[in-house]
């Protein structure tokens, strides 16, 4: 009897947390889909082309960041995790510190760099720092530590090419980590609003999140845009749930 009460309390507790956390999502979906359905989508898709444009700008930046950071981070993670060299820990610590910084601290440096490279007010100003963001290197390094040394050793005896080691040993072993990292990067850049405000000037080039925050369009269009904005991360999470759960195990110091 007591056991049943305990179990009931547990389910009640978890169920209530679940409802509280999902309620905003459900309301957003309901607003966009049912309450303002046709009108909102018509605004988004037909009457105002700037919405779709912002959508594709966001998509380009997020996809580019995810793909680019995978290319950059996998070799770096392999070196950090498996090759000893002087100053490795210190260097890695620098990555971790930068990873922890909120954007407002780095906005002035980012702004000055973008200005001096002539990429200010273009999507590159968001994309390039995103590709080199330290989160990807950090996560993959922590996961790459788990690759058995014997496996790498055996591969080294078989082949002299470090590219083959990366492609045939490191990548398959890090598969779920790479997927998880790419999803995290994608969603991070998909949802960013404060960064483009600093690094861009032309309103027509704003990504979707910032456009949504600053728009003077009516509620139907905003509701539809909010709903559409939820879809890509939601789909990604649906497809890659197991990989993300696996990959998040590397998210520790």
């Amino acid at each position, binding site marked *: 009897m007591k056991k049943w009460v*305990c*179990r009931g309390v547990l*389910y009640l*507790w*978890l169920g209530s947390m*679940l409802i509280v*956390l*999902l309620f*905003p*999502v459900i309301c957003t979906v309901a*607003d966009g889909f049912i309450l303002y359905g046709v009108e909102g989508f018509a605004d988004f898709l037909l009457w105002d082309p700037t919405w779709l444009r912002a959508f594709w700008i966001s998509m380009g930046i997020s996809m580019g960041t995810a793909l680019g950071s995978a290319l*950059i981070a996998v*070799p*770096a993670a392999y*070196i*950090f995790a498996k*090759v000893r*060299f002087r100053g490795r820990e210190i*260097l890695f610590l620098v*990555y*971790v*510190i930068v990873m*922890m*910084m*909120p*954007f*407002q*601290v*780095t*906005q*002035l*440096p*980012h*702004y*000055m*760099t973008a200005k001096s490279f002539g990429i200010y007010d273009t999507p590159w100003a968001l994309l390039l720092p995103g*590709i*080199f963001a330290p989160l990807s*290197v950090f996560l993959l390094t922590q996961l790459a530590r788990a690759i058995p040394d014997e496996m790498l050793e055996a591969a*080294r005896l078989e082949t002299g090419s470090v590219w083959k080691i990366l492609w045939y040993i490191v990548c398959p072993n890090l598969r779920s980590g790479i997927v998880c990292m790419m999803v995290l990067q994608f*969603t991070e850049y*998909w*949802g960013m*609003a404060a960064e483009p405000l*600093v690094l861009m000037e032309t309103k027509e080039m704003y990504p979707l999140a*910032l456009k*949504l*925050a600053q728009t003077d369009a009516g*509620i139907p269009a*905003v*509701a539809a845009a*909010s709903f559409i*904005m*939820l879809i890509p*991360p939601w789909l990604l*999470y649906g497809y890659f*749930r197991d990989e993300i759960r696996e990959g*998040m195990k590397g998210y*520790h*110091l």
Partner: protein
Amino acid sequence: MKRQKYKWKYRPLFLLLPSMAGFGVFYVIPFFRSIYYAFVNNAFRQEFAGLQNFREIFGSEYFRLALKNTLLFTVISVPCSLFLAILIAAGLMRIHPVAAAVIQSSLFLPVLLPSAAVALFWKTYLFFLPPFVSLLVFYFWKYIGLYVMLVLCGMVSVEREILEAASIDGADGWRRLWQIEVPCIRSAVFFVGVLCVVNAFKIYRESFLLYGTYPDESVYMLQNYLNNHFDKLNYQYISAASVCFTGILAGITIYAFTRERQADRR
């Protein structure tokens, strides 16, 4: 012996170059430039000003308000979210695994969803909350799933024998949680704590989405201070404030990092 020698002979360090080059150009070098700006009197004349900028920002009423609000937010949100995350994770450990998996993955969803998309919900349905509370709720909504997942990763790895021994010794669920499980995963809890602090500092994004760049006085955060000086081109004040900010966060991170490495070595 020969194998050992082979192991360290070939070190393809050049693989690190692309990452380090980009990281240096976009993050490290600009940061040192901003430290330089913290010590000059303004971005155009660039004369050495010593600690003048620091004295000025700490003398500024708005900076102190921002500091107070940010600290208050951190002090309230960090213990609350740790406590909540541990309670939820402990609950998930004690129910049917299938139900736990479903609930846990639903809890993680908000971490990935863009805040900008649900800001409309906050504006239309939660407008009656005071801004500070509203922001706290947003913080919990956004990050609690991440914390639960990380705590859970730790809890799964606690050895079953220890828990069984505790049960045999007569510890009930509640005491077992706080006296056995949580101490066993203290390094995970500590890292989640660090993340809580860092994310509390990152709450500006949500604040910006809800209240724009000039919010109510109760949610005027350090980041608002930085942002508004950025708009006024007072680079020297932003840089000085950023240096303080970086000092605090870097201190916390370095402490966590070295602590963890020492624990590994033991």
